[in-house]
């Protein structure tokens, strides 16, 4: 169990982030995190080293998130519900730069959540997990060309959503 716990601790935040960005709901992401690691534990004997462990884990994570998205009606979740409103910082003076940076991240995350789950998955696997096109293709079980094309669409959509805020970010 201690070996599995080490594995869990090594991948907890990245897996949670993936679930959080794809599902757009922190509570659901916490539930998904439990299911993902339980499935990982159950499937470990079947892991054949045909792909890296991270790729294999992310495939389980993405499938779990997609299953959950299929079961729930599409709903827009305000970003505050996911990353907090920032009200907890009221009364504390934050340096301007830090505030500007966190505001920038908030705006980008909000725009990211407006992408379709399919595009979000590719973006998060690339920019958060740092996977190559080939590794993303393995996780999502598609071709590297499809990955490039989805990334292209995601970046174009993201830029279009953020264009009105040019200067602020």
């Amino acid at each position, binding site marked *: 169990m201690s070996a599995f716990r080490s594995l869990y601790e090594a991948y907890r935040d990245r897996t949670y*982030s993936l679930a959080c960005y794809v599902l757009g709901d922190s509570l659901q992401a916490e539930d998904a995190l439990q299911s993902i690691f339980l499935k990982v534990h159950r499937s470990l004997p079947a892991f054949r080293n045909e792909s890296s462990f991270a790729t294999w884990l992310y495939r389980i994570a993405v499938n779990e998130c997609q299953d959950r998205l299929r079961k729930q009606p599409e709903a827009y979740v305000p970003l505050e519900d996911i990353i907090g409103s920032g009200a907890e910082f009221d009364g504390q003076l934050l340096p301007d730069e830090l505030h500007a940076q966190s505001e920038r991240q908030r705006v980008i995350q909000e725009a990211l959540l407006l992408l379709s789950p399919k595009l979000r998955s590719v973006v998060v696997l690339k920019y958060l997990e740092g996977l190559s096109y080939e590794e993303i293709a393995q996780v999502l079980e598609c071709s590297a060309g499809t990955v490039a094309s989805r990334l*292209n669409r995601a970046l*174009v959509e993201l*830029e279009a959503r953020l264009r009105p805020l040019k200067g602020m970010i």
Partner: protein
Amino acid sequence: MWCFRFDLRKKLMPYVDGRLDSRMVQKIEQHLLDCNACRLQVKILQTGHRLLTGLPVLTPTRDPWEAIEAAVLADSIKAQEVTLVAGSRRWGVHAPGLALAGVLSLALAVTGVWLIRTGTLHERESESFNQKEILDLKRFQPVSVTNIKDQTEPHIVAEGVVTAMELEEEDGDFTFKLIEDASRPDQFIVCEIIEPIRLKPPKVGSRVKVYGVRRFDDKSNHQWFEVHPVLNIEQVKR
């Protein structure tokens, strides 16, 4: 304005990402000199690329390791039961000459399996599941419906009366409310029985102790404390 060099357009993302070899980079850059549409597309992609670089890693507010550990243990128990059953079945007939012994063995095995299964069912009937030895229930912090908000321990045991039992048809999960007494139905803890720790739900109106992981459901229309997942239920006799 549109560019019909589809072969090059689909390479723009890998170009922005720095994934092309020098020959292809040269080809793209040659094309960009003459094509406004692709230049604009590259600029858009570069902006998106820049914005997403450094996307922050998020951390769960509550570490669900305790629940994962409990679920993994529940899995191990199930696996042991299956092994026991499979082991019993190996006592079957292996050769015609041993038919009688085989039949007797099989009968014994079937009886054994039946006894094991009956025992398991019986244990479930007692509304307490066989993980409790492993879970060490003494470690669970006792809480009440009214003071759960003051607790910080993840593992808790809450006592109360069962009300508002619901079955989620989609996944078979059971949800019920635990209240202190019927005169204060607005003060409750929501308890969730979920896979893989599929406990028998307690009877509505019965008084029980519910062991599990404490959490707060902060959805705007919820805002209540939960025991989620429920790890054990004990009937309280008064």
